[in-house]
C-alpha cells in the first residue's frame, strides 16, 4: 500500500510530467512504472495519456541515468528524468565528465510529496550536498570485514565470488558511468583483458572496471542489483572510489566542474610507498 506521502508525490509527478509534455519542454519522461510482480521498471512516457504509468515508491531503485546514452531514447528529444538521489549524483558526475549538459535535460526529484526541477549545475550540486550517500548498513560492514581479513583470505574471497562471473556485462550495462562506446574489454590490439570468463579473465575484467570507476563511481549499487549471479561487484567500485576520497579528497558526483580524479593530480599528493 502506498503511504499518503507517496500518493501525493505521485500526483505531483503526474502533474509535472503533464506540464512538461504539454509545453513541449520535455519530449520524453524517463521514469519508473509498474513492472512484473512487485518490481518497478523503467518507462518512457512520451504523451500525456501515458503519464498514469509513472510511479514513485520504495521500489524505484534502478539507476535511470543509464538511458541518457541510449540512441533510441536520445533521438526522442529533450528528456526529463525522474531522479533518485543517486541518479542526481550520476548526472552531476556525467556533467563533470562533459558527457551531458544540465541544459540538455530536466532533472526531476521527488521530495516530501513535491516535485522539484533541478535546472542548472548549481541546483544539482546543492541537491547532492543535501543528500549524502546512504548505504544499507551491510555494505559498510562487508567492506570493513574484507579490509580486516589477511590478504590470502581476501584473495580467496574474491576468487570464490568472481568464479561465478560469466561476463554477461550486466554490471557494465547497468552503470551510467560505463558509457564508453568501446569498452577496454572489447579492445583487442592489444588484448588487455582476456575475453573468456576464467579466473584470470574475470580478475582482469573486474579490477579494470574498478580502476576505471575509481573516483567516478557514484555508489548507486546498480551493478550489484543487476548481477544475475549475485557477485557483490559494487564492493569493488565503491572501495575504488573511497580510496580516491581518502587519498585525494575528491567525491564523485558532487561537483559539476571537478577534474577527473585519475586524470589529474596535485603536486602535493601524498604517498608512503615509493622508494
Amino acid at each position, binding site marked *: 500500500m502506498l503511504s499518503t506521502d507517496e500518493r501525493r508525490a505521485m500526483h505531483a509527478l503526474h502533474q509535472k510530467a503533464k506540464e512538461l509534455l504539454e509545453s513541449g519542454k520535455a519530449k520524453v519522461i524517463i521514469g519508473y512504472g509498474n513492472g512484473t510482480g512487485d518490481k518497478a521498471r523503467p518507462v518512457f512516457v512520451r504523451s500525456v495519456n501515458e503519464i498514469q504509468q509513472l510511479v514513485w515508491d520504495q521500489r524505484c531503485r534502478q539507476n535511470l541515468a543509464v538511458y541518457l546514452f541510449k540512441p533510441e531514447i536520445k533521438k526522442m528529444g529533450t528528456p526529463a528524468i525522474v531522479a533518485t538521489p543517486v541518479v542526481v549524483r550520476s548526472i552531476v558526475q556525467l556533467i563533470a565528465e562533459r558527457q551531458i549538459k544540465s541544459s540538455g535535460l530536466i532533472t526531476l526529484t521527488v521530495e516530501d510529496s513535491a516535485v522539484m526541477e533541478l535546472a542548472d549545475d548549481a541546483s544539482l550540486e546543492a541537491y547532492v550536498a543535501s543528500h549524502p550517500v546512504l548505504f544499507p548498513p551491510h555494505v559498510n560492514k562487508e567492506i570493513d570485514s574484507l579490509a580486516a581479513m589477511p590478504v590470502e583470505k581476501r584473495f580467496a574471497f574474491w576468487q570464490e565470488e568472481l568464479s561465478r562471473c560469466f561476463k554477461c556485462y550486466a554490471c557494465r550495462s547497468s552503470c551510467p558511468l560505463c558509457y564508453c562506446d568501446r569498452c577496454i574489454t572489447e579492445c583487442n590490439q592489444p588484448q588487455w583483458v582476456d575475453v573468456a570468463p576464467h579466473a584470470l579473465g574475470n580478475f582482469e575484467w573486474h579490477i579494470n572496471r574498478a580502476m576505471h570507476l575509481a573516483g567516478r563511481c557514484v555508489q548507486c549499487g546498480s551493478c550489484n542489483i543487476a548481477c544475475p549471479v549475485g557477485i557483490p561487484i559494487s564492493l569493488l567500485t565503491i572501495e575504488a572510489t573511497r580510496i580516491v576520497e581518502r587519498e585525494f579528497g575528491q567525491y564523485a558526483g558532487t561537483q559539476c566542474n571537478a577534474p577527473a580524479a585519475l586524470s*589529474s593530480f596535485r603536486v602535493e599528493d601524498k604517498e608512503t610507498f615509493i622508494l
Partner: protein
Amino acid sequence: METPFEPKIVAFVCNWCTYAGADLTGTSRIKYATNVRIVRFPCTGRIDYNLLLKAFAQGADGVIVSGCHPNDCHYTSGNFHARRRWIVFRQMMEYMGVDMRRVKFAWVSAAEGAKWAEVVNSAVADIRELGPSEAFRSMTRDVA
C-alpha cells in the same frame, strides 16, 4: 636436488631517468642482482597497470616500477599522474587479495646508479623471502 627459488622480476622504467640510472649502475661497475628484466617506456605516465597484471599472469614473481622524481618528469607531469594511479591501484590490488609487497615503486634519477642497485637488490631479497607468486599463478586460464 631442488633448485633454489630465483625470483623473476620485471622492471617497468621510464626512458629519461631510471633507464639512464640503470645504465649508470652498469657503467659504475656496481654489482647487483640479475633477476630483473627491464622494459623501457617513454614515461611512467605510460606504464598502464594492466602491464603489471600481464607480467604477473605470465609468471613474474615481482615487479618494479620506476621513473623520474616528482618535478623531474621529462614531460612535466607524467610521473604525477602515474603516482595517483599507483596509489589507487596498490590499494585495489591489496583489496582483491594480491600481496603488493611483490611490487616496488621507486623514483630513480639518471644520477642514482647506486640507488637503482639498492632498489633491485632489496626487491630481490624481499621477493625471495615471499617465494614464488602462487596466488597470481593459481589464477590461470584453466580454472573456469
